């Protein structure tokens, strides 16, 4: 019997016209690992919630069609019964904990199921051992790292012995270290083969070898593609690309090469397959054709005057915690700098000092040659824009137009000029039709764009962004990065804090690596990825394609130092991905 059988499933949330899921048919096979893909708002999480009956039992929405778990209709089955068959690990490790200690968390579900206390001990031990947390039974959950939290979250489900495990973006809130922990965990589940796994994730290359089947949802909540990974990524690439579904870099590479008349056979979806296929394929000329495409070296604007940002021997302690340890850093004007490092390395603290949110001591941080500690906040906010990870935090008015106009009014500009400049900004960022809307009603990608617009309205020349592509689908992320590239080409200095190494390789001119509060490295991006010592100390990894190129370079030196898709083969349409749709918005 199929562990999960979905027939003509339709789900519509109260107050929404469009359904979140529209006619989904899906039958999972025992023991398979299924990757569930889809653009933002395509209903991936909604589908996950129907698998253990949280929809319709806990969330009020209209549901038609049927979901059968081990033959039982979820509508007719209590959540208690379903929770012993299907468990979900959610994205936010904090929000899924109820208690304070690891042990309490793991027994929580068992207690709810009225398991006799005598039986719990063994089940807790087994569940914790399975996730590699056997020695952590009595730790407090708030003292765990992000990766450990997700492991405990999984253990608390494993204790209930479900046959189906659903992971809904389990690594979205984690740094590269935590992400690797979670992937290793999924890999060990797969090895034991006892569970049917449904995985929603978009960091794909390091996972693809575990995936038996890919199901992609379309924008209208329908199944766009369903099949083995190779077939889906080979045959449905265009259908996946247009709504913005993330694809493995390997598959994108294969398509690029196919487009240049060099199809790879068999079509690779994992780095190993790509290595094998590319070693068989002689590829003169194409490799390295666009090596100079990624911007390198300081831009022309950097020579005149003071650098955009200069940090001299900055330290900062929070209580007894030394968060920044004598950091010195110079960001030339017009640079595109990526700040990378594990969680807790001090990236955000450093960036907050640059924007004056945290007040640096005297003579430690200079923006355009001015000492931040002596620059009034209002003056500084006209020079440096800071886009927070959660764009909602920055909204201070009730309408999109007022958001953009806010900084201009604060500058004391006449109302006519405020209106004119606001309209121009909204036009440029593709937000004109939302001028009167409340910022909170925008989509995630639009909120991001608005927060960037508000941070540039007063003519700020330096823009700092904390995880600008967090939680976005490929389309929105691509548009955001194209926008930043555009601003950078116009002379603005861009600083991004990110965990996404592909983004760093594709867009950043320089990279600063933080580790334990200190600056480990600052230099051209290309140099960073040639320094395995720095990367391993900062617990980072090069992007998937760079790792592939490094492996291939042992056989063919032409591969050495290649980092991105564009390095390997230029796209058929030379504009960067995402820019195609944005072009009309950018004057």
């Amino acid at each position: 019997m199929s562990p999960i059988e979905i027939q003509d499933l339709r789900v519509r949330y109260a107050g929404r016209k469009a359904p979140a899921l529209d006619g989904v048919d899906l039958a999972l096979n025992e023991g398979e690992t299924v990757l569930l893909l889809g653009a933002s708002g395509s209903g991936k999480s909604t589908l996950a919630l129907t698998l253990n009956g949280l929809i319709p039992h806990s969330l009020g929405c209209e549901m038609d069609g049927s979901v059968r778990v081990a033959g039982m209709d979820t509508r007719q089955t209590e959540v208690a019964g379903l929770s012993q068959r299907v468990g979900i690990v959610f994205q936010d490790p904090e929000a899924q904990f109820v208690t304070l200690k690891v042990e309490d968390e793991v027994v929580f579900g068992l207690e709810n199921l009225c398991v006799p206390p005598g039986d719990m001990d063994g089940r807790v031990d087994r569940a914790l051992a399975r996730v590699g947390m056997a020695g952590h039974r009595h730790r407090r959950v708030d003292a765990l790292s992000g990766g450990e939290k997700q492991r405990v979250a999984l253990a608390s489900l494993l204790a209930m012995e479900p046959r189906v495990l659903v992971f809904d973006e389990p690594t979205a809130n984690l740094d590269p270290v935590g992400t690797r922990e979670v992937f290793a965990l999924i890999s060990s589940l797969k090895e034991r083969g006892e569970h049917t796994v449904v995985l929603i994730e978009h960091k794909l290359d390091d996972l693809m070898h575990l995936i038996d089947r890919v199901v992609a949802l379309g924008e209208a909540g329908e199944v766009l593609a369903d099949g083995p990974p190779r077939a889906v990524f080979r045959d449905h690439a265009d259908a996946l690309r247009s709504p913005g579904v993330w694809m493995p870099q390997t598959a994108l590479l294969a398509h690029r090469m196919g487009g240049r008349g060099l199809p790879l056979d068999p079509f690779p979806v994992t780095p190993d397959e790509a290595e094998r296929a590319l070693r068989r394929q002689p590829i003169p000329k194409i490799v390295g054709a666009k090596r100079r495409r990624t911007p390198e070296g300081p831009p022309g604007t950097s020579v005149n005057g003071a650098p955009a940002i200069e940090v001299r021997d900055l330290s900062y302690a929070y209580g007894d915690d030394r968060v920044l340890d004598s950091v010195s850093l110079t960001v030339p004007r017009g640079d595109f700098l990526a700040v990378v490092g594990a969680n807790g390395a001090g990236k955000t603290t450093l960036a907050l000092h640059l924007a004056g949110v945290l007040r640096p001591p005297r003579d430690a941080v200079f923006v355009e040659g001015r000492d931040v500690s002596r620059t009034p906040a209002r003056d500084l906010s006209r020079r440096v824009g800071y886009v927070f990870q959660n764009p909602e935090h920055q909204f201070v008015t009730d309408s999109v137009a007022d958001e953009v106009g806010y900084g201009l009014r604060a500058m004391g500009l006449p109302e006519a000029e405020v209106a004119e400049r606001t309209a121009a900004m909204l036009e440029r960022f593709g937000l004109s039709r939302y001028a009167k809307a409340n910022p909170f009603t925008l989509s995630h990608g639009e909120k991001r764009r608005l927060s960037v617009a508000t941070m540039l309205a007063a003519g700020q020349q330096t823009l700092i962004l904390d995880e600008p592509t967090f939680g976005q689908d490929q389309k929105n992320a691509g548009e955001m990065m194209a926008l930043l590239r555009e601003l950078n080409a116009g002379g603005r200095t861009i600083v991004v804090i990110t965990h996404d190494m592909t983004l760093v390789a594709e867009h950043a001119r320089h990279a600063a690596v933080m580790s334990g509060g200190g600056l480990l490295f600052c230099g051209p991006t290309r140099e960073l990825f040639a320094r395995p010592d720095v990367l391993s100390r900062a617990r980072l990894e090069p992007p998937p394609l760079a790792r592939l190129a490094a492996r291939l370079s042992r056989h063919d030196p032409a591969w050495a130092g290649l980092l991105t898709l564009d390095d390997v083969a230029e796209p058929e349409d030379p504009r960067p991905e995402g820019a195609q749709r944005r072009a009309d918005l950018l004057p």
Partner: protein
Amino acid sequence: MQTFYRDTGAFLQRLNPLSKVLAFFPALVFVALVTDPWTPLAFIVLTAATVLVLGRVPFGYFLKVAGPLLLLVVGFLIFYPFVVRGELVAGSPVLFTLGPLTVYEAGILYALATALRIYALILLSLSFTLTTDATDFVRALVQQWRLPYKVGYGALAVFRFVPMLGSELAAIRAAHRVRGLSEGGGPRARYEQLKRYAVPLLATAVRRAERTALAMDGRAFGAYPERTYYRRLRFAPRDVLFVGGFWTVCLLIVLALNAAGLLGPLVLLQTT
């Protein structure tokens, strides 16, 4: 969730939380009713000694938590003599006059008594929080005192929210500072500011509450009217020992104070 709780593994921490409630509650009520300064003083010493010796709470940490609350008492001490009811100080010798204000000796004594009383109440409650894991307290309430478990665990989940809301508020304030908004100003500006903070804070809180609820439901929370408990909380002999011992010491203190003539009339028994 961060309370003042310090798990030192000492006697007080290993007690059933409810036995601490049982032990402290009569003392709390009694101290609330006394009018002399000596009884609260005695209970302050007793509570501090209990926390430091039986709870092995580090002295420095104890001072860090309990110290700032002393300021409250000092503040009370300064202002109370000026606002004390006239008939209470009638006939008392005048200590000094400050313009139109007259300070009587009785006023100072009343201030001292009231301030110490408040501090003793604070300290008694603090001794509970310093030595009690909130989860255990809720668990004990649910298991032994029949608090509906949905209410108890709901409260725990809300409790976990507090630090999240704190860090969220800090992030929002920082984000608004970047936009060039300054804090402070008149009441109107304060109201506007509050409104600006409230919307994003509420949006986050609602979203997170929903996620937590789903994670709980997904683990069969609320599936049955009853649930089992891995760790059963019971009253152990040491709990009986503690409650009995604490009551006895309290009683001895009160009797000693009474014998020394230091115990003032209780508020309830006072005739006005």
